């Protein structure tokens, strides 16, 4: 009999054990190293001038008065900057859609940056900004993504000759057949309005051109892949002239900390000014209106085909996404969800029409889950609708459609294989934790008193690990199949271990991850292991902490590097003990001769041999104890086949959410009375970190479901530039979330771990929507548009179609 995969008590020393988080030691002591904390001598401060018009021609810019202000070092306009730099990277084959850090000739959204000032203080720079005179000719704008598709719509990028950036229909599996065979269909529209992650730290970048070394040094609050590459490309300098310091603590990101345009501005200014350090720290208005901050803005039109027993056969999905004025990587957020386009269900086929349009809004950037959360909301809405239509229990319909635990690895119609999972077991754990029966009693008691209450359920996937072959699906010029992460290790002559990673951290605890895994592999105390963030010139290849990938990829690389060290130690021990490698036992750093355990070599002795006693090394063995390991994403490396089938992402975490909500019928206000979820991300490396990200993700999802929206007025003005208008949940809005872990290890990773960083955000919006609709169903109403502002709910309840 084989050991059950669901064992939740891994045989580990450090992995999955309650251990303090390394990073907390400095961060909770107020000793972080955030970009605002880095002060260089003579540093200049940048302020930005934003366009008040959603779309306007720039007729003239007069910077003379600003330049004359004492303390002002430079004023930079889009015309000047675009002459000296290449456009920022887009990703889609749309050469006429050019994106520069500062507007050139035409402004394309209210808040777009038109000019910047570098001065001796930020206050002074803002004074100078007020002295810049810009003459605009306001033009009609386009704000509604559907209207942007119409032939007479104003063109955001006239050279592109259309507002459609991308449009393609994929058909995976026998969609027509499945629809023909299905006993029933339902069609609905689901709207995910524009929201984002909005970290409490804004974006900031500091640059210094080191003339002597010909290196642009960057300290930034950054979380993105290919950052150094994009800097080099835009500044027209060699890649090895870009040094990005990765030891900057990032004050939250969850995907959005891109800031490439800010970086180009400060880097260019520093070069222009002969190496003076220049920094740009967004203020909140810069951040919300013109920074790289907004997430998906999506309309789903979905038809679901099913049988009377609740079995879902097929989906036809049209996803229209508003990428805003400058697409960046935004449109690819239509692509990633292909990795889990049928959710945890045995849906046999799927048609997916993905459309990305450009409008006169701020450009869209990646947000936690990279399009997966809106997609999960749509899938779960479909499942709930089918259940309601058929009079089926919402748990039962999920059970009937779940991929069975013994079916893994399971290939979904899009060609991706899910690595492992046990959806019914996780659902059952969640039901037990939430106490479904009690939730139902509570809901019904509220209803009996004439009030509105509902229970939500959502069962969702979190693809983890990266491998964005969707990029190739959307743009075959992007023939990139390598998705790697590197990690280095050094063991010094005293036996202390240093791990070397090559990217920034924004709260995910990567140092803890690396130390825990290296400690586990080498059986050494993780708290004694230092983990450094090497800069982009010193470090190994990294794809950055996107795609819920670090536990999988950095964890795998750290394990690989540590195993190389162990392999070397075995050789040294075997050589010195005069036995074969297979005749050794290892415990806590010491190798024993299995036949005679009194004969041993300790960790300290081995380290001395490696570093100081060449004469004791096996012939040909490299001295010292250092190793590097660069790991390719498991299952990655293939291009799509002729049917556009391809493996996207290696690992699939699963979560089952439950919520009890009440709606005040007089005001439409939703109160969350209870929230529970069961979660399976395989082996948990650090329980506190995973729990934090899961609950934090739920809070973030509650925001997206009920409160948060970047709103544009019909005339294109941006309405949500402050924290008084963009409403993030406080402790009062987030209920106490009960959570339970389940462990279905991934067969593809070093310790069975999967991704968890996108966390509860991938299920909470769907769950809250499910609960609200359960409540509204008692009045035969439904609402499929997020956020479900109380005003929208009240209008629905009171028959007000205007609101």
């Amino acid at each position: 009999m084989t050991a059950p995969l669901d064992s939740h008590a891994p045989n580990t020393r450090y992995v999955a054990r309650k251990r303090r988080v390394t990073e907390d030691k400095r961060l909770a002591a107020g000793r972080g190293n955030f970009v605002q904390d880095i002060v260089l001598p003579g540093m200049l401060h940048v302020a930005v001038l934003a366009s008040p018009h959603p779309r306007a021609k720039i007729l003239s810019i007069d910077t003379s008065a600003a330049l004359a202000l004492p303390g002002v070092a430079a004023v930079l306009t889009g015309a000047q900057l675009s002459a000296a730099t290449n456009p920022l990277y887009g990703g889609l084959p749309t050469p006429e859609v050019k994106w520069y850090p500062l507007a050139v000739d035409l402004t394309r959204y209210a808040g777009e940056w038109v000019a910047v000032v570098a001065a001796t203080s930020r206050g002074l720079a803002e004074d100078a900004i007020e002295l810049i005179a810009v003459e605009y000719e306001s033009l009609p704008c386009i704000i509604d993504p559907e209207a942007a598709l119409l032939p007479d719509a104003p063109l955001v990028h006239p050279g592109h000759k259309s507002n459609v950036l991308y449009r393609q229909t994929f058909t995976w599996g026998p969609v027509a057949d499945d629809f023909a065979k299905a006993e029933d269909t339902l069609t609905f529209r689901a709207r995910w309005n524009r929201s984002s992650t909005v970290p409490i730290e804004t974006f900031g970048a500091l640059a210094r051109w080191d003339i002597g070394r010909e290196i642009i040094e960057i300290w930034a609050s950054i979380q993105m892949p290919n950052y150094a590459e994009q800097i080099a490309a835009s500044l027209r300098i060699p890649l090895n002239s870009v040094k990005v310091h990765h030891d900057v603590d990032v004050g939250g990101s969850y995907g959005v900390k891109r800031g490439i345009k800010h970086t180009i501005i400060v880097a260019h200014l520093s070069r222009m000014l002969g190496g003076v350090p220049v920094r740009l720290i967004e203020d909140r208005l810069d951040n919300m209106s013109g920074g790289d901050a907004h997430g998906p803005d999506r309309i789903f039109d979905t038809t679901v085909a099913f049988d009377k027993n609740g079995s879902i056969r097929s989906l036809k999905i049209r996803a229209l996404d508003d990428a805003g004025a400058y697409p960046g990587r935004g449109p690819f957020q239509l692509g990633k969800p292909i990795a889990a386009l049928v959710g945890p269900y045995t849906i046999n086929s799927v048609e997916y029409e993905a459309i990305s349009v450009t409008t006169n809004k701020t450009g869209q950037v990646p947000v936690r889950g990279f399009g997966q959360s809106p997609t999960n909301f749509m899938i779960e809405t479909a499942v709930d609708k089918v259940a309601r239509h058929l009079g089926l229990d919402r748990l039962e319909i999920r059970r009937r459609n779940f991929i069975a635990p013994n079916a893994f690895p399971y290939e979904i119609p899009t060609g991706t294989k899910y690595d492992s999972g046990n959806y019914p077991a996780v659902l059952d754990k969640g039901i037990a934790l939430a106490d479904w029966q009690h939730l139902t009693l509570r809901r019904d008691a509220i209803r009996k008193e004439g009030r509105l209450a509902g229970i939500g359920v959502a069962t969702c996937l979190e693809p983890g690990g990266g491998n964005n072959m969707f990029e190739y699906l959307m743009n075959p010029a992007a023939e990139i199949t390598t998705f790697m992460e590197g990690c280095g290790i050094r063991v010094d002559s005293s036996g202390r271990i240093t791990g070397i990673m090559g990217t920034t951290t924004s709260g995910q605890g990567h140092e803890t991850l690396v130390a825990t895994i290296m400690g586990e592999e080498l059986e050494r105390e993780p708290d004694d292991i230092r983990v450094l963030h090497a800069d982009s010139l010193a470090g190994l290849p990294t794809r950055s902490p996107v795609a819920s990938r670090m536990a999988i990829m950095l964890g795998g690389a750290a394990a690989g590097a540590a195993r190389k060290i162990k392999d070397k130690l075995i050789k040294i021990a075997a050589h010195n003990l005069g036995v074969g490698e297979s005749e050794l036992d290892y415990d806590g750093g010491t190798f024993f001769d299995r036949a005679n355990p009194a004969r041993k070599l300790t960790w300290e002795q081995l380290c001395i041999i490696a570093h100081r006693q060449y004469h004791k090394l096996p012939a040909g063995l490299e001295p010292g104890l250092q190793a590097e390991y660069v790991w390719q994403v498991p299952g990655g490396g293939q291009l799509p086949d002729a049917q556009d089938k391809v493996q996207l992402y290696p690992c699939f975490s699963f979560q089952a959410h439950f919520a009890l909500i009440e709606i005040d019928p007089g005001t439409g206000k939703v109160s969350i009375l209870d929230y529970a979820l069961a979660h399976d991300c395989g082996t948990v490396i650090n329980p506190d970190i995973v729990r934090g990200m899961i609950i934090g993700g739920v809070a973030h999802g509650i925001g997206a479901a009920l409160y948060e929206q970047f709103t544009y007025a019909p005339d294109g003005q941006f309405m949500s530039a402050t924290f008084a208008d963009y409403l993030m949940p406080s402790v009062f809005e987030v209920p106490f979330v009960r959570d339970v872990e389940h462990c279905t290890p991934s067969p593809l990773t070093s310790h069975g771990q999967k991704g968890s960083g996108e966390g509860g955000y991938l299920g909470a919006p769907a769950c809250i929507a499910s609960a609200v609709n359960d409540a509204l169903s008692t009045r035969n109403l439904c609402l499929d548009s997020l956020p479900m502002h109380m005003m929208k709910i009240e209008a629905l309840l009171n028959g007000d179609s205007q609101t």
Partner: protein
Amino acid sequence: MSMIKLTVNGVARSASAEPRMSLLDFLRENLGLNATHMGCEHGVCGACSVILDGAPVRSCLLFAVQADGHAITTAEGLRKDDGTPGVIMDSFMEAHGLQCGYCTPGMMIAAHALLEQTTSPSDDEIHEAIGGNLCRCTGYAQIVEAIRLAGRRMKDAS
């Protein structure tokens, strides 16, 4: 420019600043106290919280000149005299009451003000104390747990 003399974390400090400079910027830029963080600069997020004459306030909503002659406690003041973490800081570490660490100093200041009043706060009291401090990472659960833990430890120690 005005000369501003104040007490910060029990130490007399002085520096000059323009009247328009916020207390937040003054603490960070003129006094080199970086634990107080800038989140929104319009008084909503609470990342810049400090204690002014015993009460927690937003340092972005005060001009530094207003603090002349007053006493301020910043998150740095929650360390022990030897620089090691005080009980609130250590409890945040133990309960992992943070992730990115950006809102954390403000949260700890809010917690400090609360625990000065009571070491056995109810959930409602904790919510009231940190209700004006936004965290985007944690969903607050581990922060609330950290504050409860700190309270228990302070109670046990007294």
